[in-house]
């Protein structure tokens, strides 16, 4: 016959209730800890806009910048109070900025689908739709054939001296896409002369540049 060496009396109803409550409190504490850890991880993780921001490739006036599907060189900038395009004159409440660029497709036909000016506060002024743009949004670029033309913007006069141009081939959504960015060297004297000009400026057509490449 086996001898019983230890013996514990079964828990009473109060003990069983306390044990059950402790177990539930433990589960609750674990849940709260899991949510807290999840919150910490989430707060330390970059948001989707940061994670998927464009790959901005910067250059200077006259330098070739790689925008993945095309290469581009910003050549010159001019401005005016009024512009003429296809026989129509357009005025603005700010100032027109005309950026002359040379672009060439790299491997397959493409186009400059996105063009914007970025001011010192990070605000984006997209290329105007008040005229038919000669180069941006529509002109197809062929590999190895450089095209030169102007891209036209309107901006408030106050921001005209602190602008960079941004160019990409994707028209709407530049997330995780290459974007070429070039600061425009515009000073207050240039802006003043643009505003003083009484004659409207004619927007130049885009033309194929023979015998030149962007580099």
């Amino acid at each position, binding site marked *: 016959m086996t001898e019983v060496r230890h013996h514990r009396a079964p828990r009473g109803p109060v003990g069983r209730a306390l044990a059950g409550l402790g177990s539930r409190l433990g589960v*609750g504490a674990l849940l709260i800890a899991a949510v807290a850890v999840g919150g910490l991880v989430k707060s330390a993780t970059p948001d*989707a806009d940061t994670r998927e921001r464009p790959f901005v490739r910067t250059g200077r006036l006259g330098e070739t910048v790689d925008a993945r599907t095309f290469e581009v060189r910003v050549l010159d900038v001019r401005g005016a109070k009024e512009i003429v395009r296809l026989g129509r004159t*357009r005025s*603005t409440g700010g100032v027109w900025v005309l950026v002359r660029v040379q672009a060439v497709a790299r491997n397959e036909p493409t186009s400059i689908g996105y063009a914007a000016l970025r001011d010192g506060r990070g605000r*984006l*002024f997209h290329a105007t739709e*008040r005229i038919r743009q000669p180069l941006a949004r529509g002109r197809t670029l062929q590999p190895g054939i450089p095209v030169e033309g102007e891209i036209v913007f*309107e901006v*408030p006069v*106050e921001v005209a001296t602190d602008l960079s141009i941004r160019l990409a081939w994707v028209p709407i959504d530049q997330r995780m896409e290459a974007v070429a960015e070039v600061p425009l060297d515009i000073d207050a004297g240039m802006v003043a002369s643009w505003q003083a000009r009484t004659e409207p400026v004619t927007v130049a057509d885009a033309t194929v540049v023979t015998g030149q490449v962007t580099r």
Partner: protein
Amino acid sequence: MALPPRWMGIGAAVLALGVSGLFGGLDEVDTGTELATVELGTVHTGEPWNVTVTGAGFADELESFEPRTPGNRWLVVAAVVEVTGEESRFDLYDVLRLRNASDLVSQGGAFPGRPDRILLKRDGAEAARLHPDMPEELYFFWEQAGRTEPPRELEIEIIGKTRRVDTLTGHMQWLDPEPRALVRAPVKDLTS
């Protein structure tokens, strides 16, 4: 000892409230249903645009363009719109809606009361895009069936949007177009 489901539900609700309290609590819900009224010619400051409705009228025909169906007329609202957001905007068809105009020919698709056309007062060109800090006076056009009398007064809703994270993409976007203010404007006969 098994808890009754009702007690478990109450406990779960209390736990959820407690946990949400640890992380800033639940969002407040604006239960206000009354739309603010703005006087004609007064700016309504909002996001992503400030809007000043300056007048309203109707015309059976205009020099530059006619209604799609002969005999119809244009209801016209003039407004100064200034983009307050950080980027040029091309959703100008969301800026205004008509509340009380009946028999509009184009119902605006999924957004009743949306205008049919928008022109720049500056040069009569189609207004496709406005830029930050560059206010422009725009003409908004709605085509109304000719069989209906033009309203004597237009109730014009100024629409606003909220910049928030899109729950589908996780990206910040301007979403939730909602009326933010109401403008009542007498309707003038523009052909006389």
